[in-house]
């Protein structure tokens, strides 16, 4: 291409309209994201009020040490990644299924009502979800155990049984995000040109073939972008969810402790800015590496689907 040989200022001029359109977003990002990003140095400093971000003394990697010294670093990293993978895969499948099925349903009233209902969990805070979960799973007056005992069965002590928790956490995670997530896929399906469907119908494909060969490929860019965006948080645990459902029940930690809950417990009393920055920074770096690799993989498939 000819343009590639041209200089920077040529491009600056050529892209002037684009750059003008980008200006608000770029200005915002520089001011509100890049400017405070200097705070990352706190991860390597012994913070004091008087010194502030710049004046505080450097302390090398001291702030990172507590995480590994806890002896639970590997366990919480493993839990965080496994939970997130589970949530991403199962959540995506459910959200796409709901979106696809909703578009196939003819009754508009049913569609609207069903979708409105699915949005409701989004508004129930994790604190309340935690109380509800206790109402369902508690050994005394939990709904499940009351049912079991009334049928003459033996109580299941969910709160002393760690292996039950990946399933419970998965359920609540999907439940809470299904309305929100499926809307994104619905919007993508709605953006698909109707003519494509018509031509598929004429070709004699049945509905299932149409879903798998027309609808799903058509929303693939959205699926991949959302997947990459979730991958970008794979080392971050949803603190609100874990802390409200599991609480401080040490018996369950083997299966439920994630990086964020561990860091919270460690820093709750000392409130150490340096150490919390350090944990955040470590998570950022691990996510960064993961997402850059994933992005690279996607770009081998199709560059248009990538995040950057």
């Amino acid at each position, binding site marked *: 291409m000819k343009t590639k040989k041209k200089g920077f200022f040529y491009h600056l001029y050529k892209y002037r309209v684009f750059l003008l359109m980008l200006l608000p977003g770029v200005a915002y990002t520089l*001011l509100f994201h890049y400017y405070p990003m200097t705070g990352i140095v706190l991860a390597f400093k012994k913070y004091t*009020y008087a010194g*502030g971000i710049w*004046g505080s003394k450097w302390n090398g990697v001291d702030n990172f040490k507590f995480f590994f*010294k806890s002896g639970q670093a590997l366990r919480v990293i493993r839990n965080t990644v496994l939970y997130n993978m589970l949530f991403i895969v199962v959540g995506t499948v459910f959200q796409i299924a709901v979106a696809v099925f909703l578009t196939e349903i003819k009754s508009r009233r049913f569609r609207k009502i069903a979708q409105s209902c699915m949005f409701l969990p989004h508004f129930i805070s994790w604190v309340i979800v935690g109380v509800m979960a206790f109402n369902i799973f508690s050994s005394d007056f939990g709904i499940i155990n009351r049912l079991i005992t009334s049928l003459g069965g033996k109580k299941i*002590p969910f709160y002393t049984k760690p292996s039950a928790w990946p399933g419970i956490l998965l359920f609540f995670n999907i439940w809470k995000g299904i309305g929100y997530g499926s809307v994104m896929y619905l919007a993508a399906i709605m953006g698909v040109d109707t003519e494509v469907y018509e031509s598929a119908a004429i070709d004699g494909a049945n509905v299932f073939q149409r879903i798998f060969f027309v609808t799903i490929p058509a929303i693939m860019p959205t699926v991949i972008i959302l997947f990459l965006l979730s991958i970008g948080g794979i080392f971050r645990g949803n603190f609100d969810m874990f802390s409200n459902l599991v609480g401080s029940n*040490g018996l369950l930690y083997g299966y439920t402790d994630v990086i964020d809950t561990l860091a919270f417990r460690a820093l709750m009393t000392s409130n150490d*800015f340096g150490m919390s920055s350090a944990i955040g920074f470590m998570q950022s770096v691990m996510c960064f590496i993961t997402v850059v690799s994933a992005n690279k993989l996607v770009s081998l498939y199709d560059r248009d689907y990538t995040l950057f």
Partner: protein
Amino acid sequence: MKKSIRKLAALILALALGMALLTGCTGDGKQDESKALETTAKADSGEKEDADTKADEGQSEEQPAGSDLPEETITMYLLGNKGDNFDEAYGKINEILKEKINTTVNVQWIGWGEGNKYSLLFSSGEDFEMIFTASQWGNYENTVALGGFAELTEEMLQKYAPDVWEQWPAEAWQQAKINGKIYMIPANYVEVNQDVVAIRGDLMKKYGYDNIDSYDKLLSFYEDCYKDGMYGNSVGAASVYWLMFEHLGMYAMGGTPCQGQLVLYNCKDPKDLSYTYVLEWQPFIDYCHKMKELADAGCWPSDVLNTTSERQDGLVSGRGATMVWNAGSCQIYANQANAEHPDWEINLYNIMPECKYRATRYVNGGVGFNAASKKLDRALMVYNEFATNPEIQNLAQLGIEGVNYINVGDGTYKSTGNDFGGGSFWGWRNMNIMLKTYYENPTPVDLKVEELDKFFKENLYETHLLDSFTFNTEPVATQVAAVDAVQSTYFDPLINGLVEDVDATIEEFKAALDYAGMQDILAELQKQIDEYKAAN
């Protein structure tokens, strides 16, 4: 090649845009830095000078009367929320302050549970003078470690808060000291927050107990309750845990990790300056075994660690036979439950009558002064008024007479039910002038509370040197964070008797704590105790 040129171009563009945008902000940023430097300098050397010059000013005026002082506004942060008539009450306070010291107080709030706002105030260089603080739970040690509070010298206190300096006991100042320096004015207030047990009288009769006056009797009562299909204590053993070591005369060492649950000292013997690490302490191990027995028997639900119930819920709802809490709280709920179920005959019991008791520390509430403030002198004068002027004390504590409370005379008051709010009004409490609660038609529970309160106050431990000691976690911050992270994995299940194998769990717990650096912490603790001993 081409690629890298493009990359460079993009980078330059981004930088150019950034520069254009940030010119405005960098200016401010620099100012911030220089400001920060200034304050560091002040913290290092200037502060004393500052105080000295102010002292000179004060001297020239002699007895500062309100009209002579320049007008000032003092910003004070409280924790919590303001209730009814708060602004009205502070309007009255400001009238008095205006006349006496030409000052107006402006109150700002940090809600309960908005803890990180506390440190953000100091980080951002917010302009304020006074803030509520308390040892441990009220950020006192943290803030001092980060250089947030101004040091209060004896001269300053004598000069600007003379009444406080005179009236406050030496012990209060002693407790406020960190590395020999005072950074807060503690409230002149102590109470005996001893846990007692509220027990269902009807059940005691049923199982044949005249009185429950020992720890062992309480535990056997729990077992009797279970046999009858009732929880002894519906929130588990966590509340009983403290009673366990308190009845042996052991108390948590101030400032140690995990709210002091792992390291105790012996209150019975003032000469005993050693610490006790609970994992190597036989009574703790026995306790864990006993709790396992009770938990297995079903004295509390197996999911206590997740329960949303509060301490009183079991007792009030009839699902539990007892509740463990301080006398004041037990009193509220025992009265409530008795009113609804007179046949329950709940009363309060002290399960350690042969023991002595410990009062709370003065530093459990106080006021800290912002190191960056330039109006320290005036802020101290304001504190002096709040703490020693009965009129202001009552306004700030109870609200408006006749509206929020009624002065019954004899130094007692009655609440009218108009909520003055749940704020941290405790920073300037002064036992000498505070009004006390008046009970109109005392119930048996009320009488018992009064009796217990009197008994506790008459049987206090001698002052122990370690009462005023607070462990400084700074040198072992990494280890403390790691230990805090590990603790609840084992500790909470252990003390509630929920583990499979007590001995194996204790061993595992010990190994995990050692890996996290518990031994370093204990060594540092010993070192600090030795230094403390030498200094006092």
